[in-house]
């Protein structure tokens, strides 16, 4: 892999220059809530929150939109395709490895048996530029093997102090560097040592650990465990964990009619398997009526069924669900207790 060096003194110039390519999305800090971060369109490179932790909503919101119009319909003209942001060229800048892994999972899900034209219209116009990070007490990407990325990015910036090492992941990334060659320099021996030192420091910074060895097997054995009922008593099934999850992709499709009663829109909108009406069918039968069944379904989808279907779990250890849960449910704690068989209600 080609690696070049970008001095921090030139990084804002680099960021500004990316606007020539298209819309640049960066993590920003909420002025009214210090320490709370969100992805948004960059207006000025000084808005970039270099030391950010996880954002509230992951960058999937730019690819799999929270709510989008997928067709406009009219009684005479039928259903006409609408693909929002179809022509928008966009750079997702500053993504941490966990979020890049999240997008890698969505890339597979939305193009397995059928290609989702909405996701892919946006995906093919999206550039991903990653950024190294240091974990906090809710990060467990190291346990999920998502703490580093070898692909899935166009460029990846690693912080080595005065400079960033910039790994080039694609030919498009190579072009982005080549077009701005004056900003970059060669990597020197000292930089390599700094990078290894950074890696060591980062590896030693993880405080949260989850043992995922043979976890699908253990979950399969624990299908009827009382743990799920206990969890069902705590979980409010509010769906916050799904909304903030980089890999949750469930959605619903529905129509809304305009006031003229002749035209309207077909909407595709995020949904969550935790919601009470999720498995409700016409006639009133609900296939997962109680909360325990729904919360269990979410855990099994992430850690069991995804492994069966795609070969790896769909949890990237970003810690957002731990942060977002109003009932204080911690996925690491739950899965650890499943393994130990030691769950007790709080």
């Amino acid at each position: 892999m080609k690696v070049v060096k970008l001095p921090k003194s030139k990084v804002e110039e680099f960021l500004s220059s990316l606007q020539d390519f298209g819309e640049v999305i960066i993590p920003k800090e909420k002025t009214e809530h210090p320490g709370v971060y969100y992805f948004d369109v960059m207006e000025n490179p000084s808005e970039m929150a270099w030391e950010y932790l996880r954002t509230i909503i992951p960058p999937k919101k730019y690819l799999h939109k929270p709510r989008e119009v997928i067709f406009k319909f009219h009684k005479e003209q039928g259903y006409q395709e609408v693909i929002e942001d179809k022509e928008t060229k966009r750079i997702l800048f500053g993504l941490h490895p966990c979020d890049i892994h999240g997008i890698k999972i969505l890339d597979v899900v939305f193009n397995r048996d059928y290609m989702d034209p909405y996701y892919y219209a946006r995906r093919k116009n999206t550039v991903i530029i990653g950024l190294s990070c240091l974990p906090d007490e809710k990060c467990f990407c190291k346990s999920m093997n998502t703490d580093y990325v070898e692909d899935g990015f166009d460029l990846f910036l690693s912080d080595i102090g005065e400079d960033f090492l910039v790994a080039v992941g694609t030919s498009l990334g190579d072009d982005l560097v080549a077009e701005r060659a004056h900003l970059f320099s060669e990597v020197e021996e000292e930089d390599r040592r700094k990078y290894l030192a950074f890696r060591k420091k980062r590896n030693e910074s993880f405080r949260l650990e989850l043992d995922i060895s043979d976890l699908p097997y253990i979950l399969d054995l624990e299908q009827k465990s009382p743990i799920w009922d206990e969890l069902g008593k705590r979980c409010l099934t509010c769906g916050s964990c799904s909304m903030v999850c980089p890999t949750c992709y469930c959605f619903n499709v529905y129509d809304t009619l305009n006031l003229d009663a002749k035209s309207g829109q077909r909407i595709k909108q995020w949904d969550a398997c935790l919601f009470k009406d999720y498995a409700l069918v016409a006639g009133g039968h609900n296939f997962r009526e109680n909360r325990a069944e729904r919360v269990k379904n979410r855990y099994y989808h992430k850690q069991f069924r995804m492994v069966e279907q795609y070969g790896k779990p769909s949890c990237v250890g970003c810690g957002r669900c731990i942060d977002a849960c109003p009932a204080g449910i911690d996925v690491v704690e739950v899965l650890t207790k499943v393994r130990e068989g030691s769950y007790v209600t709080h």
Partner: protein
Amino acid sequence: MENIYQPLETEVLDVITETPTIKTLVLKPPRPIPFRAGQFMQLTVFGVGEAPFTPSSSPFHPETMEITILKAGRVTAAVHQLKPGDRIGLRGPFGKGYPIEKFAGKEILVVGGGVGLAPLRALLYALFHEAEKYQRISIKYGARNPAELSFRRQYAAWQKIPNVDFEYTVDRAEGDYRGKIGLVTNLLDNLDLNLNNAYAVSCGPEVMLKFVTLKLLSIGFKPEQIYLSMNRNMSCGMGICGRCNIGPYYLCKDGPDMNFADIQKYPDVFG
């Protein structure tokens, strides 16, 4: 690039009232939609929304498609308002359909309940197309009351097909009904068939599917000899949206007709 979500505008040729709660739409798509028996379509009612239904017509006549629908919710209530000449949207087919190739030379036991006979009718047409290929086709059907017996005008013709026997029952008799009374599972008592060479296929309400399955198992059917139509609120049809999973399976993509051996261990099979 073809958009898999795009509904194909389709004319309603006719609307047949099957029972007080069930109607059949006869549809004329602008181009034939080839499908396998058991595969389903996503049907759009203009301005109301989209819902999954399995055709009830013969896969050998894809130029017109019939879909038989029970009035049960929002979209189906709108379906029941449709008139000849109206236009609806179709996309699909989705799912795998019945593994009809496996049925050659076998005794096929088809067990339907209520509107569940609709998807099964597509299978029956496919089986009747080459009825001699199968050892025997036994159909057992139950409805709530005589008025709710779907496709009643066809029973006499079906009973005349060599290799085919057809029996039906109602939960409650009414009026001048003189046929069998009782649950459809009663028709599975004293079955005269070679269990080693049989498959059972069932479609109906969840509670009926459950008791039919238990009955079949108690008779001696092995789980891998039982196919069940598992239906959920499929929103995409492509194994993405996540509304229809049982264990690792997405019913829209891996079903909706599932081999019971594959799904029996998952607790939400019958809801």
